[in-house]
C-alpha cells in the first residue's frame, strides 16, 4: 500500500505531494498541500462544497482520487483572487450578501467560475441548472444567482474594448 509521488499544477504553481492510493483529491489538497478552502460537506459528490476545476472541468474533489491528479492542472478557491484583488464573482458575492455561514461558498465560486469560463452570458435558468450540484442551506440561492448574473455582466463589461 505504497504512497505515490504526484506532480500537478495547482493555481499555476507546480506542486509535488505524496498521495495514498485511496486518498481523495480533496484530502490531498487539504492535508498535504494545506489548501483548506475546498470543504468537505458530504464526501459523496452531492453537495459541491469541494468543487475544483481540473483540466478545465468542474469536478468534486471528494470524487477523484489524489493519484489521478498526476499531470493535471488544478484550480482551487485559493487561486481565484489575483494577488489580493478579488475576482468579480467574489466581489459580487460580498456585494449581494450571497453567503451567510460561508461553508458552501468556495464550491459555489469555483462552480460559477467554471460556468462563466465557458458561457459569458448565461441565462438565469442556465445558472440555476449549472449550480444544482452546489447545496447552500443559508441563502435560498436567490442572492447567489443574482451575484453570478451580475458578475457575468461585470466580466463582459471588463472585456469590452475601450
Amino acid at each position, binding site marked *: 500500500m505504497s504512497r505515490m509521488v504526484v506532480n500537478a499544477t495547482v493555481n499555476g504553481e507546480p506542486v509535488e505531494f505524496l498521495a495514498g*492510493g485511496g486518498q481523495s483529491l480533496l484530502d490531498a489538497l487539504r492535508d498535504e498541500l494545506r489548501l483548506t478552502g475546498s470543504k468537505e460537506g458530504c464526501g459523496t*459528490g452531492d453537495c459541491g462544497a469541494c468543487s475544483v476545476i481540473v483540466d478545465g472541468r468542474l469536478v468534486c474533489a471528494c*470524487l*477523484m482520487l489524489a493519484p*489521478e491528479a498526476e499531470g493535471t492542472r488544478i484550480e482551487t478557491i485559493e487561486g481565484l483572487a489575483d494577488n489580493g484583488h478579488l475576482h468579480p464573482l467574489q466581489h459580487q458575492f460580498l456585494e449581494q450578501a450571497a453567503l451567510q455561514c460561508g461553508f458552501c461558498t468556495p464550491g459555489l465560486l469555483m462552480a460559477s467560475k467554471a460556468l462563466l469560463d465557458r458561457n459569458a452570458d448565461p441565462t438565469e435558468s442556465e445558472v440555476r441548472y449549472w449550480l444544482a450540484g452546489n447545496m447552500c442551506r443559508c441563502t435560498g440561492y436567490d442572492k447567489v444567482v443574482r451575484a453570478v448574473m451580475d458578475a457575468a455582466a461585470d466580466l463582459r463589461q471588463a472585456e469590452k474594448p475601450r
Partner: protein
Amino acid sequence: MSGVDYLAPASVADAVSALRASAGSARLMAGGTDLLVQMRGGRAKPEVVIDLKRIPGLMGIRGEGGGFVIGAATSGAALGEHEALKAAWPGVIEAANLIGSTQVQGRASLGGNLCNASPAADGVPALIAAGAVCIIEGPAGAREVQVEKVQAGPGKTTLAADEILLAFRLPPRPARSSDAYLRLIPRTEMDIAVVGVGVSLTLDAGGVCNAARVSVGAVAPTCLLVEAAGVALVGTTLDDAALAKMEAAVSAACRPISDKRGTAEYRTKVACVLARRAALIAKDRANA
C-alpha cells in the same frame, strides 16, 4: 479508503493483466462517481483500484464506419460538447447528461453507468434503444455484445471477472432517424429515475416508421429492451392505435418493485406515458 493501491495502466493489455493478477480484489474505475461513493460507504472494499482513463481509446469519441465509437470512460460533459454525436443521437446524449450535477458530469461515463448495473441507470435504456454494441476486451481477446445483454441484475453484469468494457459502438444512422430519452423524477434535477424510457426510430420518406426500438429502466432488475413495443410502431405513422399497442407492450414487459420512490402500479403506468411521449419526441426529431 486507506490501504488501497492505485494503478493507471497505459494499455488494455496491462489493465487486463492487472485485473487477472488481482484475483478479484481489484475494481475498475472510469469516472469513479459510483465506485468512490461505494468505497467510502464500505459497500466496495477493493485492495486495488485500476483507473482506465489513461488507456488510449477509453476517453473520447471517434467516427467509424459511418457511426460513432464512444470510449467507455468518456465524461458526460465531453459527450454533451460533441455536436455531431448530439445531432445523430440526441436521446443518448440527453440521457447521459441527466446523470448527476455539473460536477458529476465532469467525470461520470456511460461505461461506468452500464457496469454499475443500476436498474435505474439513465444512460442504459437510451443505449439499448440506440442498438449500441459494447466492445469488450479479455484475456481471450475482444468480443462485441449488445448493451441489453450486459446487465444481469442490480450491481451485476455478464462481464467475466477479467474482462474490461472498452467502448460503445453506435451504428450508422439512416436518414430520418432520431431518438429520445425521458425519465420521471419528483424534482427537477439531481435525482434517480423512478422510470426511464428510451426510444429510437427511423421514418421512411412518407413518414412511416420502418425501424424502432424501445427500452425501459427502473421497472425491472435490469434495463429492458421491449422488442414488442418497437414492433408496434413499425409500419405506422405513430398514430394513436400504434401508440396504444406500444404502451400495452411496455406495460406487459414491466416487472417493477414498489418502494419509497413509486409503487409497481405507478411505475408501470408512468413507463407507458413516458414511452408515448419519447416516441413522439423521437418522431418530431426524425422529421426535423
